[in-house]
Every structure is written in structure tokens, then in C-alpha cells.
């Protein structure tokens, strides 16, 4: 493994974030703050505690997860889609680097940005509601693993997409609905039994539940299931990326 190319890709991607600071960092923070005002303060004040936690505090992990998933996917997908679109990907393909180095560079940069964003949102949330983190190590682990996994998913989408429409399609039609239905704003105990069963097929439930557990020690599903789910997701994404590079899918004719 040669670290120079990894660093070159990583730094170039971070520079892109810096150029688009407003869109990258400020806008997710503003939209999260809006969620806090609407759900936390306006609606939350009429909802009694969930599992012994005030509603405002209850939704914090879910909101961070929501941003983490959508931002990871959109950062990473755009990062690799843009050179493909502009044609400058020729350089990446002709460089003496392995696919692992390419992935570490792009996914690493996208995940770094999402993690930073997650921490900023966490800090913002602490201004609105009293926060309490029971398992800080697990909290960070979930944060990092989720950011990395979904940045990989974004990377795959960026390679698959052959137009801006497709680039938007997956986040809009799949990621966002799954997150909203993944228990970001509610505990799945609140659902009728049938829908509780259906929800268990939604992978995001496991992520939100595990993340919430790291904050408050309460979860909808067992913590083991949450970790297993992330590991499974990570493995699927890694395998897909390995396949993409070994076949040259959508990269090499």
C-alpha cells in the first residue's frame, strides 16, 4: 500500500468540502436545528417521555443517524460521480494504485466529513436538550462504522449512477424513507404489532436502535443484532466494491 495516492485523494476531497462549506456543513446543521424546534419543542412538549427520556432528548440519536446516513451517501456518491461525469477519472484509472487505495481515499474523506457533521449536530443538540451519553466508546464506534459503511454505499451509487437523476434517486427513494421509518422519531414499541414485525426488516432500525442504546442504554432490538447488522452491511458493501473493481463495472469498457 502506497500512502501518497491515498493522501492525495483524501486531501482533494477534503478541499472540496472546504470549498462547499455552506452546503456541506451549515445546511445540515440548520435543518437539524429545525427538526429540534419542530419535533423537540413544538410537538415534543405534548408527548410524554419515551422510555423514561424526554422526547427532545430521545430523538437526538435518530436525528444524528438520519444526517449521518444521508450525508455519507451523498458525499461519497458525488465524490466519485463527479470525476466520472467530467471525465477526469481517466487519471484515477491510469494511476498505479489499487482499488483499496482509491476506496480508502474517497470513502475515508466522505466518512470523515459525516463524522465531523455528526459531532457538530451532537453539539448543536446539546444546546436544545440535556444530553447524556452512557457508552461514549460505543457511541463513537457506531458513528464511525455507520459513516464508513454508508459512505461505501454512496461510493457504489456514484459508480452505478450514469446521470444526476440516478445520483439523487437512491438517497431520495430509499435512504430517506428507511431512515424515517427506522425509528428515528419513535420507539418501535409504539407501532401496532404487525408493523413492528415489518420494521424488523428495515436495516436502519438496527442502526438507530444501537446508536440510541449507546446514549441512554435503551434499545428496540438487542445491541448484538445492531452490531451484526452493521457488520453485515459493511461486508456487503466491501464485496460489491471488490466486484466493481475486479470487473471494471461502469468504469472500464
Amino acid at each position, binding site marked *: 500500500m*502506497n500512502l*501518497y*495516492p491515498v*493522501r*492525495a*485523494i483524501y*486531501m*482533494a476531497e477534503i*478541499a*472540496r468540502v472546504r*470549498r462547499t462549506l455552506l452546503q456541506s456543513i451549515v445546511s445540515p446543521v440548520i435543518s437539524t436545528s429545525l427538526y429540534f424546534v419542530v419535533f423537540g419543542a413544538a410537538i415534543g412538549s405534548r408527548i410524554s417521555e419515551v422510555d423514561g427520556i424526554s422526547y427532545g432528548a430521545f430523538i437526538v440519536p435518530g436525528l444524528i443517524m438520519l444526517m449521518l446516513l444521508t450525508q455519507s451517501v451523498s458525499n461519497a456518491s458525488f465524490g466519485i460521480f*463527479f*470525476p466520472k461525469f*467530467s*471525465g*477526469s477519472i*481517466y*487519471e*484515477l*484509472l*491510469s*494511476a*498505479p*494504485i*489499487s482499488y483499496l487505495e482509491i476506496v480508502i481515499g474517497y470513502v475515508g474523506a466522505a466518512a470523515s466529513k459525516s463524522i465531523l457533521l455528526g459531532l457538530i449536530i451532537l453539539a448543536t443538540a446539546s444546546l436544545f436538550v440535556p444530553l447524556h451519553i452512557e457508552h461514549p466508546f460505543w457511541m463513537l464506534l457506531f458513528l464511525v462504522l455507520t459513516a464508513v459503511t454508508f459512505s461505501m454505499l454512496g461510493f457504489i451509487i456514484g459508480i452505478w449512477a450514469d446521470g444526476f437523476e440516478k445520483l439523487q434517486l437512491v438517497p431520495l427513494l430509499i435512504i430517506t424513507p428507511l431512515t424515517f421509518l427506522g425509528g428515528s422519531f419513535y420507539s418501535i414499541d409504539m407501532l401496532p404489532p404487525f408493523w413492528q414485525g415489518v420494521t424488523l426488516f428495515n436495516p436502519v432500525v438496527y442502526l438507530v436502535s444501537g446508536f440510541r442504546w449507546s446514549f441512554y442504554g435503551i434499545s428496540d432490538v438487542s445491541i448484538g443484532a445492531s452490531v451484526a447488522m452493521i457488520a453485515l452491511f459493511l461486508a456487503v458493501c466491501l464485496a460489491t466494491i471488490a466486484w466493481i473493481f475486479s470487473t*471494471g463495472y461502469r468504469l*472500464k*469498457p
Partner: protein
Amino acid sequence: MNDPIIRINGLTKTYDGGFEALKRVDLDIQRGEIFALLGPNGAGKTTLISVICGLVSPSAGTVSVAGHDIISEYRAARAHIGLVPQELTNEAFETVWNTVSFSRGLFGKPPDPAHIEKVLRALTLWDKRNNRLMTLSGGMKRRVLIAKALSHEPRVLFLDEPTAGVDVALRREMWDVVRRLREDGVTIILTTHYIEEAEEMADRIGVINYGKLVLVEEKTALIQKLGRKQLTLQLHTPLAQVPEGLAPFDLALADEGSTLVYTYDAAAREEGEHGIAALLSALKTANIRIKDLHTRQSSLEDIFVDLIKERA
């Protein structure tokens, strides 16, 4: 060090749609030469370069660069190569300095600001180093692509139509850049449809058409071998037809009989009986008086058009 720097054996590329872009191409590129790949649009020039550089997977055959197979030892092979693509592709928002430094890192080399400065100065980009790429003219953008390709000190440089859409002054400047690189020992492979470019620059020329390498030859040998000369004779009195005594010569009348054109090749020049001297004495015998005469050597362009026509 007489091994070829690039060795291509039986290279074939069939695209998914079934289009055969390259058909069993064999080619050796020698160290330090400038090799021009000529061919009409769609002949397979870019596909050939793309396979060597790793942008397109070969269907069959092998390519090695400096003795390293481009697939099994892609790191070692690609580290030798710099590629300047045909189309102007840039990260519009980056600065010249950053994008060229990025390329060096991408090719696995540690940062070397002195080398980047040298490359930018050589391409007269130094004053623009802090400009964003989108603010540059087309010619400047092309220089940036060359600077990117040279950022990691490659031993082989591929230039895919380097002067397409570039004005005459800049084209000459690019040729100078290429010559200087050759003096530094860089092997250069360029594709072009400007014959002038190949004629001006190349040591050897390969002609590719319909995915087949139809000819590879030293430039001078090619011109000598295939070059036809024309002798144009302005006559004192127009002729209605070529006199019978001159039938052995390949003659044609033009300008309503006032001009006689003799086409001959290098071989005919050697043989006495069809040479110019023989023709002139035959003309004297036929009592045809000449006002003026001039000869013309056919250019690579004529040769090329003939070749493509013949093999099509």
C-alpha cells in the same frame, strides 16, 4: 537498454457491443523515440492508448511497459506512464498548482514542489499557478493536462491528439515542449490526424485503420519508399494528346494540353530508362519545347490518404 520500452503482442479489443476496435496489434516502441500513430477517426488510436494506460481492459493479447505486464504488474507498469487525454477534462474549481500536485501524489510520488515548479515553468503555466482551472483558456487547460501527466516524472508520455483545437502558435510551442522532453530521454507516443504534426515530430510512424496496424516505418524511409514525385512541365505549344513516343512514361496532360505531368516514384528514378533524363531526351526527340518545369515530393498526407484508400 535496447529492449523496447513498450511491447504489444496480439492485442485485441472487442467492445461489449461486438465492435472490434483493435485486431491483433503487434508493436514495439523503442526507448527515447517519438512515435506517431496516424489514422482516421474511429481507427482505434485512442483504444490502443487506453488499453496501455489501463483505461480499457484488453480482450486478448499482452502489453508490457519497461518489462512489466500492464495487468499483473500494473503498479510498476503504470508508474512509468504519463497520459494526456484527448478531451479537456478538469476539476473546474481546483487551482493549477493543486491539481498538478494532486496528480503527482496519485501516482505514488512524494511531494516535490521544485519539480512541480519546473514543469509549470516549462509549460509557461507558472504565472497561472494560483488560477482556478475554469478561468483558463482552452490552450492553457491543455497545458495543465500535460503538466499533470509530467508531474510524476514518467518515462513514457502518451499524447492523444495533443494539438486538436489548438492555434498554430501554441501548436509550435507544444512541439518544442515535446522535443525538449525527448532530449531528456522521455519516450513519446502521440496520436494525431494532422500529418504535418507527424511529419514534423516523429521518428517513426504507425498507421492504424479499422483496428489494424497497417504499417510501421521510419518516417524518412516511409516518405522515400512510398513518396511519389511529380515533374510538371509547362509546354510552349499545347498538345492535343501525349505523343506515342512518350507512351512508356506515366504522363498526363493538364490545363488544356499546356501542362504535362510526369508521376514517378523512387524506384523509377533509379532505373535509367524511366528516369527524368530519359524523359527529357525523349521530349527532345519528339520535338516538344518546354517553357518551365518544377518537381514536387509528395507529403506524408498524400501517402496517408493513398494508404487508407488502398486498404479500406
